[in-house]
């Protein structure tokens, strides 16, 4: 139909075709948009509104900027903010590198690879509570495997989760363990989407394994990696379960990240208004990073394609 029209009245058609396509665009995103408005945007806006009140689940009085001012006078918030950033800086690169390596390993066509894939994904499927106790026993200063390894390497044994200086790093390790299989699968989906012909062509051109990785795999994996990176930035700052199960913010507040602080204020002290304001501080941090990624890094990713 479009073709018939385009032979008769070419000029008008280009416009209407574009509009038609735009309409199709709206059609495709409409259900998602509806969902987004009800279950995502509306709660976010409500929380934003609550951040200017002293809402405590029973009453809410307007307090203006008081919650935000309170945030900046609390030393607790500063240290939580620093811990959140430290957590992200350690977790994000480690997660990306390890999950890529694992994905490359399980992308090999060798016998039994699906067993390995399954085992690598098991941490994602292991309940956090159980992961928590197993890791606590691995980190046990006296009988744990981690200190056994340290002694083997002739390093001094440590108190890990019980040492305020090491507890956050220990939680990073557990989170890494829990999350790496997930991103491995994302990378694997990306790797599997790369047409095999490209590798065959590269091989015919005499490319080494490294060269075909560098010039075929990496460029085509950029889009996947970008997704993982943005999601890692967003999710690392919201890691809550591991902290809740393993340390409850301790010892001596050493693992009290911003999200844990928010949970405490919201559900232990029912200061919903203040907790919402804290959440928007976290939001600014995460959204800033995400926005930078979307506007700057994304352009770089798409240009390089």
């Amino acid at each position: 139909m479009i073709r018939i029209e385009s032979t008769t009245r070419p000029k008008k058609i280009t416009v209407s075709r574009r509009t038609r396509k735009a309409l199709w665009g709206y059609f495709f995103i409409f259900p998602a948009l509806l969902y987004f408005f009800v279950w995502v945007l509306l709660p976010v806006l409500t929380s934003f509104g609550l951040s200017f009140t002293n809402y405590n689940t029973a009453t809410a009085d307007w307090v203006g900027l008081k919650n935000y001012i309170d945030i900046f006078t609390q030393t607790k918030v500063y240290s939580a903010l620093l811990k959140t950033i430290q957590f992200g800086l350690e977790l994000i690169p480690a997660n990306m590198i390890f999950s890529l390596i694992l994905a490359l390993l399980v992308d090999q066509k060798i016998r039994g690879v699906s067993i390995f894939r399954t085992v690598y994904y098991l941490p994602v499927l292991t309940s956090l509570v159980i992961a928590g106790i197993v890791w606590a026993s691995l980190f046990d200063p006296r009988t744990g495997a981690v200190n056994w390894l340290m002694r083997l390497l002739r390093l001094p044994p440590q108190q890990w989760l019980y040492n305020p200086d090491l507890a956050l790093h220990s939680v990073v390790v557990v989170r890494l363990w829990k999350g790496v299989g997930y991103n491995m699968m994302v990378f694997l989906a990306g790797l599997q989407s790369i047409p095999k012909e490209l590798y065959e062509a590269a091989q015919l051109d005499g490319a080494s394994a490294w060269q075909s990785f560098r010039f075929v795999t990496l460029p085509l994996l950029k889009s996947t990696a970008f997704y993982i990176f943005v999601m890692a930035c967003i999710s690392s700052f919201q890691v809550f379960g591991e902290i809740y199960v393993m340390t409850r913010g301790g010892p001596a507040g050493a693992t009290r990240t911003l999200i844990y602080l928010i949970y405490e204020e919201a559900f232990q002290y029912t200061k919903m208004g203040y907790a919402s304001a804290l959440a928007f501080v976290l939001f600014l941090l995460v959204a800033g990073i995400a926005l930078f990624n979307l506007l700057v890094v994304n352009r770089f990713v798409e240009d390089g394609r």
Partner: protein
Amino acid sequence: MKKNILVVSILICLILMTSAFAVTAQDSDGEIVGAKPTGDGKLTLWVAGNTPDIQSAFNEVVGNFNKNNPEFDVAVEFIPWGDLSTKLTTAFSAQVGPDLFMHGVAASAGFMSKGQIEDLTPYFESLPDKDDFLANLIAAGTVEGKVAIMPVQVTNYMLIYRKDLYREAGLDPENPPATWEALAEAAVKLTQSDDLGITLAGLQMPVEGADVEMAYLPILRSMGGDLLSEDQKTAAFNSPEGIAALQYYLDLFEKHKVSSLTPLPGDATIPPIARGAAAQVISGQFSLAQIKDTSPELYDQIGIAPPPAGKDGKISTMSSFSGFMMNAYSKNKDDAWTLMRHILSPSSLTIIDGGSLFLPPRKSMQSAEFITGDPLFEAFALGLEYGEGNPNIPTWVEVRNTLVESLVDALNGKTGAEDALKTAEEAVNKVLAQ
């Protein structure tokens, strides 16, 4: 003379019984039978904790009620302790939720200050047997003159010690230490260590979380201090007694080396006393169940005594309880109270407390079979006379966490006793001023 008393008490009984019959039918055991609901008779009950024994106990209690009162239809749900606050907070935000719900006494003031729970005073005052409830528990559950929570499961914290280890260390297992100094000395004799640290703690104290406050407060009180001022508006722990109590606590780790900051040997999921890694602890009667469960061979070697006395021979034990509160949004408050009375009846309390090793809140039940049947359990009940609870104020959870943070800092050697309490005093006063 004797005859007079008899006549008077019969008269009183008659009056009480007729007044009770006026509300609802009630048999001699306080059990409610054939009650007529004022509303549609449908009630919802949320119970804290969902372990199999809690579930079976409350299913039995509610089952009895539904059977004896066919016009009622009570549904019971079990919520895990760790998620209780999240669930209740969310439900209250939408003004939905159960008619009656269970929680720790520490949560009651917060709910009351927000008007989310009903003032139970008029209901409680109308109880014919209200004097049977332990007065200090009712007082602990009263917020600004309003009864907020009715006690059901009571816990008392006592000194738990190992008689066999006492004998090995040359101590008298029938005469546990009566002063804090003597307790520390005994602990030194009981402690065993290797090059990596303590392998058997002479007296293991909590090192993290709310337990630290639960352990600190009885020491503080026995030494003559308290946590908050009389009017509960300011912190009172930064006193000579407070510092002495904290110093004692810290000395157990630093000076006497009888308590371990890092995990003791054995499975960390089992408390030290139950896995044989500590010779003495101050803990609740739930420890008895844990010992019985994981190390039954140790049970015969356990001794129970009140914690040592402090200044002027004062003994203080930490006692706390869980109980039921009434949702202020409940549509059938009178019916909810009828159910509450059933839960509080001696026969229901026997099922609830007897099945899970809790102390009952009624005086008349302190010599019940399920208590006197086990001398160790009975010792916890007898210790209730020294029992004192935490302050009941709306900001309690935050006050406690703030205090604990400073105490844990001190335990980890970041600050000394005086600095820790000074920091905590400032922070706690800030919370109290909200």
